[in-house]
């Protein structure tokens, strides 16, 4: 077990190396002038671009440039993002908590609803509840998040004015950027509570409802399907029949016997799901004008703000790789049959 984890950890640098190399290759489509922005700390430096190009050898062979860039990267120097109007490292610190908060708020409902209804759907196969669950799953799978998001906005913002886009309203904006506000976690739901401001807390919560609802509906589908099919497989096995033959009540067989085994693929999936959420927020944040990593990345891509694109993408890829690792480890941990060497 320990060796398996170590082996996976040892692979990590290679994947990260590949990730940076791939991104760097893609960047070669751009002129040296555009790539120079990667090495700039302050917008004033942009006036002397030629000097930057010379200094970092942007007209030299690719592998030389790559080495220089990696060194910068290792020093946490990621350039200046025009769209965020701040250095990339600061932008990540600024935007990541928002994305993380949105992801966390959506993750728990997905997990609970997915497992609960996925299980029920398997137990009551082909009954009304199952049909309904499958309908929700297949529609969630087929509905693009930007369509759902815009529909929700049309209804709950345009018609009812209940849930506005953005991350907070004007009052909260003044409060959060005021002097007396203590920033503890960066997660505004927690911070407003810690500052004891109920009105701001409710305001922040109100802004989370629609993007979270969008994410939940879209991402729920996968979990529903996996839980259902995994549960169906277990329910058809001999040990379940044995348990039933012993005269155990059905609910007990489901909860104590089948569900525990059916959860194995679900547990592994859930760590992947968390990361898919982090990827899925790209569109959702854009639709709801929610100031997180995803919206920043998209804006950077639209305006060809290369440091911004690279910073947000590296962050996404890094998280993705870590989650894959976590999912593998979790898998080996949960399923005693899988003890990889």
């Amino acid at each position, binding site marked *: 077990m320990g060796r398996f984890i170590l082996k996976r950890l040892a692979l990590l640098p290679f994947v990260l190396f590949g990730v940076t190399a791939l991104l760097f290759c893609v960047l070669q489509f751009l002129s040296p002038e555009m790539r120079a922005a990667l090495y700039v700390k302050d917008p004033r430096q942009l006036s002397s671009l030629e000097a930057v190009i010379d200094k970092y050898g942007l007209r030299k062979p690719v592998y030389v440039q790559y080495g220089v860039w990696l060194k910068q990267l290792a020093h946490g120097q990621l350039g200046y993002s025009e769209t965020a109007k701040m250095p990339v490292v600061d932008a990540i610190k600024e935007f990541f908590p928002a994305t993380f908060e949105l992801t966390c708020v959506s993750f728990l409902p997905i997990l609970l609803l997915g497992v609960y209804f996925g299980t029920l759907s398997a137990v009551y196969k082909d009954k009304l509840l199952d049909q309904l669950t499958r309908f929700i799953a297949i529609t969630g799978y*087929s509905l*693009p998040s930007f369509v759902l998001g815009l529909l929700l906005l049309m209804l709950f913002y345009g018609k009812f004015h209940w849930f506005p886009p953005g991350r907070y309203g004007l009052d909260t904006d003044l409060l959060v950027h005021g002097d007396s506000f203590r920033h503890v976690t960066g997660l505004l739901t927690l911070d407003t509570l810690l500052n004891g401001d109920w009105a701001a807390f409710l305001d922040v919560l109100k802004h989370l409802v629609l993007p979270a609802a969008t994410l939940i509906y879209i991402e729920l589908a996968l979990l529903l399907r996996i839980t259902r099919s995994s549960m169906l497989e277990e329910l058809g096995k001999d040990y379940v029949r044995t348990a039933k033959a012993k005269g155990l009540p059905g609910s007990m067989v489901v909860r104590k016997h089948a569900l525990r085994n059916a959860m194995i693929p679900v547990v592994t999936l859930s760590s992947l799901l968390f990361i898919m959420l982090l990827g899925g927020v790209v*569109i959702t944040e854009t639709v709801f004008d929610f100031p997180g990593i995803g919206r920043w990345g998209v804006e950077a891509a639209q305006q060809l703000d290369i440091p911004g694109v690279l910073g947000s993408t590296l962050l996404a890829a890094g998280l993705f790789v870590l989650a894959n690792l976590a999912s593998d480890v979790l898998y080996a941990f949960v399923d005693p049959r899988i003890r990889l060497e």
Partner: protein
Amino acid sequence: MKKLLSNPSSLAGLALIVFFAAVAVAAPFLARPPKGARNPYLIPQDGYSSEPARPSAKHWFGTTESQYDLYYGMVWGTRTAFEVALFVVVTSLFIGILLGGAAGFYGGWIDEILMRGTDVVLAFPDLVLAVVIVSVTRPGLFNAMISVMLVSWPSYARLLRGDVLSIKERDFVAAARALGASDARILFRHIIPNCVYPLLVLASLSMGRIVITAAALSYLGLGAPVGYADWGQLISLSRNWIMGGSGNSFQYWHTLLIPGAAIFLFVLGWNLLGDAVRDVLDPRQRS
């Protein structure tokens, strides 16, 4: 095939796809391009006011922002949707078969290099990598298709490699080799035809996702340009109008609901069909 037609949900999927295919084929008759139009995919504009107009006898689905005729855009957009989906699936299947087949068949360092390559591409959320590729290669529909293709092939390559690994140990492969067949012949005539079903299942299941990813790129303004008949792009035109007008908050409903419904039904059709294909072709799922 019989099974495909007997299941109501797969039948519904098939009906949806057949309907869209019919619209795509009949596009020049359903929505006649204006006289002298150089490119039928460019939606005709009726005036220059930015405010969308409601459905009327002249514009069946109304117009969207900047007076683009929505009906015309929807009809020709069906063609775009098929082109994007088929292009991406076929090209990424091709790359996946070539690289996955080579990796599984030759093994050794070829396998190692190719599979680490898929690791790297799979280390990105697919939309994120696609956004990066399009943005640096200049936004446009073709570049968007290429970028979705570039993020889609690794899953095919992975799947095929695994199957090739197990099939190449079978006796009939050894027999073909003993008869003096070349590597290429063994791979393409004997091995790959034996592992093509799981690949087809994956392809039909990923069709919907590909359409959504490509539409998302267009929605973000990185795909088809404004005025091009593309559903994702039409939806992005509705973005400024979801608040409605004074007194009627659903005044511009058609700008969002019509293209939104089209994408949804198109993807739904592929997903229903994909599920059915999987049930038919994958023996493990049979009950």
